């Protein structure tokens, strides 16, 4: 998917360029005004006739007014471009999320199909078993009744005997409870993945809400299970005392998903897709005074020196087509830094692995998702 089609008229790179150009113009204009103002102030201190000063000031003021009007117009343009950029980013975020979910979908289907296989085998088994048990029970009851009524049972007993054999009763007595247990467990697994998927993709409010990060991360780990389970073990070590953190739940989930998928890919790269050993992904959370820190560590390839400056750039990727589009970290940056006033950075050691470190303020600065226009100086 190209961003051009997602964003309508302007692609994200084009929009970014437009905003840059506008900002440059604005800076140039502001410099002109500063010079003019300096001139006015400067000239006032020089020895001139009052009339001359007045004349100069009027001329200058006119100029300032004119320039200010221009500036205001351009500020408005800039605000508009920024708003567009913001909208574009939101769409991009949505697009990347859909893409991520699309990629996850195949994995989720596999995660569902596997338990479905044994749930249906076990229930089919139980169904046939119960038919045999009921027949045997009925035959046995007939014997009981015959005994109670003092009738002859010699023809009934062999019938029970043969049913006991064909229904494989001793086998059923051991296997039936297990079959049902496992069917139930399998259904539980399906329910868990469906629930996680629902929580993960449920549209959250545009406002930050206090979120239990451990639960949110657990959900994301479950949703991404198919991406890591053949390659690595995942360890979640969250500070149990961590208070709820104000976040945009959906965006936060997406960031964690991107980081987990990146970690799994990095581990896949050094284990030949899981055929040579297993890696480890550790997600740890700590509470600070006014912020929390989440560290996502992998035992993957590490990030080579030449790539370190680029990984947060949009569309920078080292992955094959279909495996990555280079948006994951750019979006993580935008979500954590722009929308949450947090920070994201990494530590990496080629051949050892990488740790991505996110910090999030515990108190919402109140600026996050607000319209960007009023942030313009």
């Amino acid at each position, binding site marked *: 998917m190209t961003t051009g089609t997602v964003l309508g008229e302007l692609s994200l790179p084009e929009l970014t360029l437009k905003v840059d150009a506008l900002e440059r113009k604005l800076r140039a204009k502001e410099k002109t005004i500063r010079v003019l103002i300096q001139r006015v102030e400067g000239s006032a201190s020089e020895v001139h006739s009052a009339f001359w000063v007045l004349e100069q000031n009027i001329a200058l003021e006119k100029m300032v007014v004119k320039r200010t009007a221009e500036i205001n117009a351009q500020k408005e343009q800039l605000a508009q471009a920024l708003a567009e950029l913001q909208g574009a980013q939101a769409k991009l975020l949505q697009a990347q999320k859909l893409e991520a979910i699309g990629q996850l979908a195949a994995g989720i289907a596999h*995660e569902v*199909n596997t338990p479905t*296989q*044994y749930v*249906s085998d076990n229930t*089919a*088994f139980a169904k046939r078993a119960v038919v045999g048990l009921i027949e045997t029970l009925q035959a046995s009851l007939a014997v009981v009744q015959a005994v109670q009524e003092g009738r002859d049972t010699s023809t009934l007993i062999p019938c029970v005997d043969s049913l006991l054999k064909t229904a494989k009763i001793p086998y059923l007595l051991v296997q039936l409870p297990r079959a049902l247990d496992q069917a139930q467990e399998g259904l539980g697994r399906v329910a868990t993945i469906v629930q996680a998927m629902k929580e993960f993709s449920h549209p959250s409010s545009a406002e930050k809400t206090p979120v239990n990060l451990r639960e949110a991360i657990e959900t994301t780990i479950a949703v991404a299970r198919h991406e890591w389970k*053949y390659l690595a073990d995942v360890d979640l070590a969250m500070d149990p005392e961590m208070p709820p953190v104000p976040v945009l739940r959906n965006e936060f989930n997406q960031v964690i998903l991107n980081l987990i998928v990146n970690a799994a890919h990095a581990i896949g790269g050094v284990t030949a897709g899981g055929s040579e050993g297993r890696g480890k992904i550790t997600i740890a959370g700590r509470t600070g005074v006014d912020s929390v820190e989440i560290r996502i560590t992998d035992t993957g390839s590490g990030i080579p020196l030449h790539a370190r400056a680029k990984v947060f750039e949009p569309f920078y990727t080292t992955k094959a087509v279909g495996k990555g589009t280079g948006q994951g970290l750019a979006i993580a940056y935008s979500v954590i830094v722009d929308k949450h006033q947090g920070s994201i950075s990494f530590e990496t050691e080629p051949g050892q692995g990488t740790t991505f470190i996110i910090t999030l303020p515990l108190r919402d600065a109140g600026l996050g998702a607000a319209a960007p226009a009023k942030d313009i100086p």
Partner: protein
Amino acid sequence: MKVLFVDDEPRVLEALERSLFQLDVDWNVTFAEGGQAALRELAAARFDVVVSDMRMPGMDGAALLSQVCKKYPHVVRIVLSGQTDEAEAFRAVRVAHQFLAKPFSSEALRQVIERARLLMMGLGDERLQAIVGRLEHLPSAPQLMDDLTRALEDEATTAETLAAIVRQDPAMSSKVLQLVNSSFFSNGASISDIRAAVVRLGTKTVRALATRGGAFAASTKPGELSSASVATAQLRSLATARVASRIAKDKVDPAAAFAAGLLCDVGELILSGPMSHESDGSEGEHRQRDALKHAEVGAFFLGLWGLPFPIVEAVANHHAPSRTALHGPGLPQVVWLAACLVNGNEPDTSYLRHIGFEGSLSDYRAMTE
């Protein structure tokens, strides 16, 4: 018969074991948790069928089955996967004979395996079984291969265009029918119509099969059939297919007759291929016997690939249709008559009348024009 089931999820194996025990299958079953364990089992005992999951940690299904293909080519290889991703599925196409999608009921699985057993018993020759078991695809006619490649290069090519090419070639058609009749690529519907099969798979899948799947190839390697003889065989098969579908009119499904006619001589393609010449001393004797066996080999091949039973049966009996249980003008009889006419053999007119072909022989001869 010994069957090995491989899956990384022990619960899948346990549930299968229960079901198969309850269904009273009379084959010997073994279960292995993963590729490595499966290879150990295979080294320890002789198996006839392997049913494996695809995605497994360590050695996955594709890696396992390609090992099985190399070391134990006589073993029937079946994939039973929960994967829905086509890109992954194409890895299975090269190494497995049949592709089943989870969830797959154990009754249906039993049928698939029973059918494999019947086929093996029908062929009754492990050496031939190994030759067929190793085949990834048959050789396509070079001209049609070019046509297909060119058609696939054009983004605007429709499934109908592809179908028109594929249905002329026994090799491409057998591959397409193999896939479309597996529950992985379509819901396991039984499809004998080659055109419908291509349309159902769609241009995208056919393109991926041709490019990434390596599913079609013209014979070019030294030692294989010459391109000229593949082309000759293809033209003869196509003629048989056309005549069969004309004869079939209001007797049996013409599309199925076309497919059975097209595929009736795949056994010859296989037996004159490179692997059947691997000498084990008595080559001349083998080749002579093989010549008689081509119908059985063809049928075994098509059955192994999970093609619809009527086609398999027609191919098996197209030299001697009186052997089938069917005594009316069924698919085997139609293909037999078509093959006789195309090859210039004299069909037994009393048998013709006996099974209910009313028209005179000259009427049928006219159909070959």
